[in-house]
Structure formats: structure tokens, C-alpha cells
């Protein structure tokens, strides 16, 4: 044997292995990634894959069986409660491991471990918002009660029983692409996941920083005109005319509020790095038997969230000896979050209430070890945060904790270098609570009393829990722990030098807005203000009005309702705002000043049927025109501060235009001449037409082409290949079918409470998080077409039903 060439060859081979075992820029290490035995090929599931089998699981107390139906929905049958959640944990890990790992790392401010240095600012903000602090407080509650602890422990053990047996070849594809490894699960991670939801739904429902800048520009009367609490056209969650009892808590405005708070014209430069989408919201409604064809109630719910692959939801049935629940769960957490059992159904929408305030802190010096409070220097609790960064050295940040909460902004952390105000954040999500147990109890509720008892302790994020029972009750509660505020408390940054501006108490739970079996036979919530102006508490928030108006009017007009009519309502494209606005916009436009092209667009708008369907031109013209109008009216006034002051809501602008055509804000304050409303509206239309012409040239004038509805993979633009783009759907945030580019109805559910329960549901994704599975996106087209899957509440006797495709039998080992 010639040893020379052989050695040379062997050396080259080793060098090649070494080289290709490292990532090449964005492409993962080629050798390993392409290996059919270890790399991505292993994630390509055979179309005929068998998801069943037998498992021996350490930690399981008894036996459990999982029946998968043809959509890969698991119907879990377990002998006891702990095993039920053990198996749920196992299944969440089996199908959604990367998702739960990524989401909880991001929640904890650890995104940089996966994404590298570009996520450092995001991570610092998560730490400074006190996300881990909040989760730790929740964990104490979750583990403080032995029963609750046993449930979360079982769930965690289930997730880990899957992680522990994972081979390198079986790792989810994202780990192979990113060259990282999964982390074992803990109860803290379940708490972090709930705090991720709390942030999504209750950390972007206030505008305290931008409001503070608005306060520096406008006089108090202007502020209440531009940012009113109760819209004229509001159709609230609790029917108008409800009599509210006298409030048990009456908060008192501090004596120095005028001088220190209302008349403080100081601006603020701080800005959030990651603002939760203000469109995070939802619809739900319920109709009583008096309005349905069958005489039984029907409940509907569609939560509007970021649309992602895998979906935020995982469909599941959980059956133990004393419960049988079907619905969607949040991977990372036990229980069904939105669903039904054989007695009741429930759903949630976001309350949109403001439960997050900022307080200005005076530090003794740059070390931030002490702050001025009630006449003396008080020590801060300093929490050192280590942020590990992929391919780089860790970054450290020290967060000062005050009586109000963590100091989110100070000279060491601000997105604007000139920011010099230290702002502590008081956020309801920091308070100890155990939201999970609400769902545990709801999963087992049989009637209105059980439901009321289940939701009573739900703290944050405030939700509108809608309810229907087979015995015919319908109800809704806006439930959360909400501060009892004096008028305008917490709209702006508050003084933090003593306790006088702190929340003085909470609205007693019994006084939360609610309604049971109203005369009219229906209830609805769509992120609007919960109650009319007679509700005795000050309840600011980020509300949407138009959707609720449409749903309310539609439900009022319908009778003899069937599930299919409510499906049509969930898919409804009618644009209520445009209906209100079109006359005033058309009245003020000066047609003689428009070119032929501009006139053709105006004609589209005039002839439009007011439905934001995928093929609509009118909706595209309206949306461009209306945004241009809002921008022309407000950007000059609001850009007087940096960052800009809060924009009046779409509803407010609409109502101002309807009420006051001599609107003073129409004038462009940056020009010498006085612009009237017709001048501004005409020029806004001309600007919109430029945009429209460009879109037309690109062939994107129809609404769905313009909006490009898409469902992205969790890693967004990093992995466009795993996204599903260009869906043929319409809608918008103010429309019942609230689809907005990559945001919208993340789960549509209809439950008809007849004997045996008739239920339908769909989310734009699939059960599996694996892009190599046929169950990754199989429901996207169903959702796109406005169709539904039948939800099957399987019974013990159905074990030989033909709908069962695979059976997984788990035994304790």
C-alpha cells in the first residue's frame, strides 16, 4: 500500500469534515445538515407516517392512550389528571418543541442565545420589563398550591420525557439550521409562556410615553377631545342601559396632581424596542336559544394574533375520569385555553385595558443604588442580568427594582441617546397569580356557577370570557385584576417620589363589567370599551369600536340562527368605518382638481360595495385614502415631539370629521396659509393616488394583492421558505374578519350547545411544527377559504371509530 497518498487523502478528508462541520455564513454546516441519516432529510416525514405505537414513559402514573384523528388532533385518554397533562406535555414537545423553546427563551430575554447580537436590545428590554421577575412571582403561586404544583410538574415531566429521548437525527429542523440544542423544560418556562401572552395582550394597551408627549403639546380640553374615553358609536360589551351599582372603591386624585402631573409639560424620549401589535385582539359572541333555530345557544370565538407557522394554537382533546374537554391549547402550557366540554363552551377576547404605568424615578447618583422616595434615599434592589449571545461574549445589564417595579428606562438603556428620564414600570403582570388554574377549572365547568368560580381569580392579561351552557345560559365577564384609577390616572408618566400616585386599590372582582342572559338574547365582545359612560370606574385602554358595531348590529338583526350563519359572520368583510366615512370624504373632495387617473380611483371608491373582499379595488382605494387623510390631519401637530405623540384613534378621527367639518386640526401648521378640510382631503387623495398608481403598475391594486396576507414561520424573514405567502383573503383590523398582512384570526371556533355538542374550528397552520410534515400547513387553505373542520369530542365508546388513524399507547416504565 502506498502510504503517502493514503495519508494525504485521509488528512484531506478530516480537514473537509472539520470545515463542513461549521456553519458557512447563513448556511448550516453542510456535511452534517445534508447527511440523510442525521441532517434535514431526517425531518422529511413519510406521507404515510405512523404516529402511533407503544411508549414506556418514566414518570407516568398509569396508562394513557392517544387516538390521533385524520388531522393529527390527539384525543388523549388518561386514567388520572396528572397523566393527562404529562401526555399533553409530551405531545406539545413531540410536535412543537422548537416553538416552545424559542418562545420561552424570548420571553425570558434570551433571544440572543439563538439569534446573536441583533437581539440584545430586545433581550435587555424583556429583562427591564421584568418578564422573568413576573414569571418567578407567578411560579411561586403555581407551586404554592400542592395540587397546582402536581399538574405543572406532570406537564414539565411530560415535555422532558420527550426531550430526553431525542436523538440528534430527530431534532426539529430549526435546531439543525441554527446549530443549537433544545433545553429541558421547567415549570418556570410555563410561567414565562403565560407572561409572553400577558405582554402580548396587556403591555401594548397603554400609550403612556407617547401620551406624555401629547400632553406637552395640547391643552387639557384638547386632550379630552382628541383622546376621548367613550366613542359616540360605541356598542359596549355589557349592553347599553345596564345599571351599575355604586362603586365600592373611590380612588382620590392627589392634591398636587395638577402641578406635578397634569401641568407637567416635559417630553420623554424613551421608546419601546418591541411594541406588542396594537391589533392583538379578538371577537367572540354568543347567541341564546331564543335566537337560534335549534333553541340551543351557539358560541363563537376568533382570537386575532400574529399568524405564525407553527400556529400559536395546538388542537387537543383531554379526557380523564372526571373531565372531557376539547379545544385549543397553548404549547408550553397545560390545559385547553379556548374550547368546550359536553356541558359548556367558552372563549376569550382581550380586554385591551391599560394595566401598565410609568413612574419617574430620581436616583441618588449614576450607580442607581438608591432612589428618592417619601422624603429619603431608599435602596434599590439591583438585579444583574447576564445575556448570553451566540458567537459572542455575554452582555451584562443591571436593572434597579423600586417599590413601583423595575426601572425599564434609565441612562444605561434607552433607544434614544438623549433620554434622561428614569422610568419605573408598574405592570399588573408582575403581581403573583395563577392564570393556569382558571383554565383547569373551566375545562371541568358544568354550568354558569362553575364558570364564574373558574374565572374569578384570573388576573392578567384581562380577558372577556364568553360563556354558553347546554342548559341555555349565556354570559360574559370582563375579568382581570384592574386598578381603580382616579380620572386620567396613569395616562401619562406619573411622579414617583412618594406613594401618592400609586394605584390605590383594585376594582372589586364583582364589579367587573359582566352580563348574564340579557333580554336581547346575545352578547358580543370585539375589543371595544366594555361599558358605556355610566360605568363608575375610569377604564382607559386601546379599544377598537367598529368591529363590535358590525357584530352587534348583525346579531341584533338575525333570528333562527344556525352555526353556518355565524361562520359567515366570522368571515364577514363589511367595512363599517368606510360606511360612516364615505359620505364625509366624498362631500369634501374637490373633484375639479383631480386628474383623469385620480378620478378613476375616486370612481372605484364611489362604486364600492363597502366589502373588503380579496378582489376589491374599492377597499384598497379607501384604505390608502383614509390613511393619507389621517396622516395629513395629524402628522404636523404630532411631530412636534420626538418620538411623535399618540395618534388619535381611527374612530376618534372619524367621529371628529362627522361632527366638525371646520376641524381646526385640518390646517397644516407647517405652512403659512390656512388649509380647510376640502383642501386637506383633496391633497390627501392626490397623495394616495400616487401610491395607488405605483401599486397598480406592480399589479397590486386588488386588496389581497395589496395586503399580501401571509403566515410566516416563527423565525420570520430568516426562513421565508417555511412561510405561506400571498393568501387570497381580505379583511382588516376594523373589519370582523380581521386579517392584516400576517395578523388575524388565529383560531376560528363555533360551538353549538346541542346534546352531544356540534363544534367547528380551524387555524391557519397545522398540528405539526415540522415543515417536513404534511400536517405543517394542511389547514391553511381550509382557513383561507373560510371553511371549518369538524371538532370531534370523542367518547370512550368511539375507540373503534374509523376517524381514528393512529393509536399511541403509553405505559409507565
Amino acid at each position, binding site marked *: *500500500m*502506498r502510504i503517502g*497518498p*493514503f495519508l494525504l*487523502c*485521509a488528512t*484531506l*478528508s*478530516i480537514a*473537509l*469534515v472539520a470545515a*463542513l*462541520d461549521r456553519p458557512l455564513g447563513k*448556511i448550516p454546516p*453542510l*456535511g*452534517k445538515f*445534508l*447527511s*440523510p*441519516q*442525521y*441532517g*434535514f*432529510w*431526517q*425531518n*422529511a*416525514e*413519510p*406521507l*404515510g407516517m405512523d404516529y402511533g405505537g407503544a411508549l414506556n414513559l418514566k414518570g407516568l402514573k398509569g396508562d394513557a392512550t392517544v387516538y390521533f384523528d385524520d388531522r393529527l388532533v390527539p384525543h388523549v385518554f388518561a386514567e388520572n389528571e396528572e397523566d393527562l397533562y404529562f401526555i399533553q406535555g409530551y405531545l406539545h414537545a413531540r410536535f412543537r418543541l422548537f416553538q416552545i423553546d424559542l418562545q420561552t427563551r424570548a420571553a425570558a430575554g434570551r433571544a440572543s442565545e439563538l439569534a446573536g447580537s441583533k437581539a440584545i436590545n430586545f433581550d435587555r428590554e424583556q429583562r427591564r420589563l421584568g418578564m422573568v421577575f413576573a414569571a418567578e412571582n407567578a411560579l411561586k403561586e403555581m407551586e404554592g398550591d400542592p395540587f397546582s404544583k402536581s399538574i405543572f410538574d406532570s406537564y414539565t415531566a411530560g415535555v422532558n420525557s420527550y426531550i430526553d429521548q431525542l*436523538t*440528534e437525527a430527530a431534532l426539529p*429542523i430549526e435546531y439543525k*439550521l441554527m446549530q443549537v440544542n433544545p433545553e429541558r423544560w421547567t415549570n418556570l418556562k410555563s410561567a414565562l409562556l403565560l407572561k409572553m401572552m400577558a405582554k402580548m395582550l396587556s403591555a401594548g394597551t397603554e400609550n403612556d410615553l407617547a401620551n406624555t408627549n401629547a400632553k406637552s403639546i395640547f391643552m387639557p380640553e384638547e386632550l379630552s377631545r382628541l383622546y376621548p374615553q367613550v366613542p359616540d358609536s360605541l356598542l359596549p360589551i355589557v349592553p347599553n342601559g345596564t345599571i351599575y351599582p355604586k362603586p365600592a372603591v373611590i380612588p382620590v386624585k392627589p392634591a398636587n396632581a395638577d402641578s406635578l402631573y397634569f401641568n407637567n409639560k416635559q417630553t420623554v424620549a424613551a421608546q419601546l424596542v418591541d411594541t406588542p401589535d396594537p391589533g392583538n385582539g379578538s371577537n367572540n359572541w354568543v347567541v341564546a336559544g331564543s335566537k337560534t333555530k335549534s333553541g340551543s345557544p351557539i358560541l363563537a370565538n376568533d382570537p386575532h394574533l400574529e399568524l405564525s407557522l407553527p400556529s400559536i394554537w395546538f388542537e387537543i382533546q383531554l379526557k380523564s375520569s372526571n373531565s372531557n374537554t376539547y379545544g385549543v391549547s397553548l404549547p408550553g402550557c397545560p390545559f385547553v385555553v379556548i374550547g368546550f366540554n359536553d356541558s359548556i363552551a367558552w372563549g376569550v377576547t382581550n380586554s385591551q385595558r391599560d394595566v401598565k404605568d410609568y413612574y419617574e424615578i430620581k436616583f441618588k447618583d449614576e450607580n442607581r443604588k438608591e432612589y428618592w422616595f417619601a422624603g429619603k434615599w431608599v435602596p434599590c434592589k439591583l438585579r444583574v442580568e447576564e445575556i448570553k449571545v451566540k458567537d459572542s461574549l455575554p452582555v451584562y445589564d443591571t436593572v434597579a427594582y423600586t417599590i413601583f417595579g423595575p426601572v425599564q428606562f434609565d441612562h444605561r438603556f434607552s433607544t434614544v441617546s438623549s433620554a434622561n428620564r428614569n422610568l419605573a414600570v408598574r405592570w399588573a403582570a408582575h403581581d403573583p397569580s395563577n392564570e393556569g388554574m382558571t383554565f383547569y377549572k373551566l375545562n371541568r365547568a358544568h354550568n354558569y356557577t362553575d364558570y364564574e368560580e373558574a374565572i374569578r381569580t384570573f388576573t392578567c392579561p384581562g380577558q372577556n370570557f364568553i360563556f354558553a351552557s347546554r342548559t341555555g345560559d349565556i354570559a360574559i365577564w370582563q375579568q382581570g385584576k384592574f386598578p381603580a384609577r382616579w380620572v386620567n390616572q396613569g395616562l401619562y408618566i406619573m411622579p414617583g417620589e412618594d406613594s401618592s400616585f400609586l394605584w390605590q386599590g383594585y376594582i372589586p372582582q364583582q364589579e367587573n363589567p359582566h352580563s348574564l342572559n340579557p333580554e336581547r338574547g346575545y352578547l358580543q365582545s370585539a375589543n371595544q370599551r366594555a361599558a358605556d359612560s355610566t360605568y363608575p370606574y375610569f377604564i382607559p385602554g386601546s379599544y377598537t369600536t367598529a368591529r363590535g358595531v358590525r357584530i352587534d348590529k348583525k346579531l341584533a338583526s338575525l333570528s333562527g340562527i344556525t352555526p353556518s350563519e355565524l361562520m359567515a359572520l366570522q368571515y364577514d368583510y363589511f367595512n363599517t368605518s368606510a360606511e360612516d366615512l364615505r359620505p364625509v370624504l366624498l362631500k369634501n373632495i374637490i373633484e375639479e382638481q383631480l386628474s383623469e387617473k385620480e378620478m378613476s380611483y375616486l370612481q372605484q371608491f364611489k362604486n364600492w360595495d363597502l366589502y373588503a373582499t380579496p378582489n376589491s379595488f374599492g377597499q384598497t382605494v379607501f384604505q390608502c385614502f383614509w390613511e393619507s387623510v389621517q396622516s395629513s390631519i395629524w402628522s404636523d401637530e404630532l411631530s412636534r415631539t420626538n418620538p411623535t405623540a399618540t395618534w388619535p384613534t381611527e374612530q376618534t378621527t372619524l367621529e371628529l370629521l362627522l361632527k366638525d367639518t371646520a376641524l381646526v386640526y385640518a390646517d397644516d401648521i407647517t405652512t403659512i396659509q390656512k388649509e380647510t378640510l376640502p383642501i386637506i382631503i383633496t391633497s390627501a387623495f392626490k397623495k394616495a393616488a400616487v401610491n395607488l398608481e405605483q401599486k397598480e403598475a406592480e399589479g397590486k391594486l386588488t386588496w389581497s394583492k395589496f395586503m399580501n396576507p401571509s403566515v410566516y414561520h416563527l423565525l420570520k424573514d430568516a*426562513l*421565508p*421558505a*417555511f412561510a405561506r405567502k400571498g393568501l387570497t383573503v381580505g379583511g382588516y383590523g376594523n373589519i370582523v374578519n380581521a386579517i392584516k398582512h400576517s395578523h388575524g384570526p388565529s383560531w376560528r371556533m363555533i360551538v353549538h350547545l346541542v346534546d352531544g355538542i356540534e363544534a367547528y374550528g380551524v387555524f391557519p397552520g397545522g398540528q405539526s411544527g415540522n*415543515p*417536513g*410534515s*404534511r400536517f*405543517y400547513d394542511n389547514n391553511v387553505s381550509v382557513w383561507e377559504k373560510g371553511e371549518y373542520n369538524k371538532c370531534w369530542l370523542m367518547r370512550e365508546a368511539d375507540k373503534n371509530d374509523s376517524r381514528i388513524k393512529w393509536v399511541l399507547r403509553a405505559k409507565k416504565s
Partner: protein
Amino acid sequence: MIAVLNGYCEQKNLKKKCMKFPLSILLTLLGGIGISLISAVPWWGFVGVSFAVALVIHQVPARAFAAGFLGMFLAWGGLAWWIDWQNASLLSKQIASIFPLQGSSAALLMLTSIMGGFWGV
């Protein structure tokens, strides 16, 4: 063990080039597939296979290289093709647009095969 195998090869008079070459391809192919069944072996374990085959079956370097290349080319290509066929190219189409190979599963299969072949060498 190598010595024993060597002896066996001598005995069976496999020195003839025409027999040695396909045999070493076959051994590389089977070994490359089989080695992954041993869970303790890392992903690059099959490099040891072509190494061992080259040791066992004496050939001129060019033929040893070619045998290693073809053996692993066929092993990776065959395995990947089988997986892709069962998956109806669902995943390979997506990966081929990450790479970027314009979403061509065939190009990705070829790349995989060539990559396997390189290891074989």
C-alpha cells in the same frame, strides 16, 4: 481484523481489479448506511468506513478514491432519494429554496449525493 480481512481477500484472489472495485463500492455503500445505526457513532462516522475499506482492499489510489466516492455517492443519494420519495419532496423543495437552489429537489438530491461522495474520498 484488518489483517484477517486482508488475508481473506488474498485467498479469494480478489486482487483482480475488476472484482475489487465494485466490491469496495458495495462495502462503502453498505458500511456508510449501516454505521449510522450505531447510535454512539457521530454523523461523520462513515468516513471511517471508506477509510477502512481502503485499508482492507488494496487498490491503486485513483481507484480507491473513485470507489470511496461512488460508494458514498450512492449511499447518500439513495437514502436521500428514498426519504424524498416518501415525503413527496415536501421538505426538500423548501430547503432547496433556503440553500438557494431555486426550490429544486433534484438539485438538492444531487448536492447531497456529491457531498456524500466527497466524504467517501
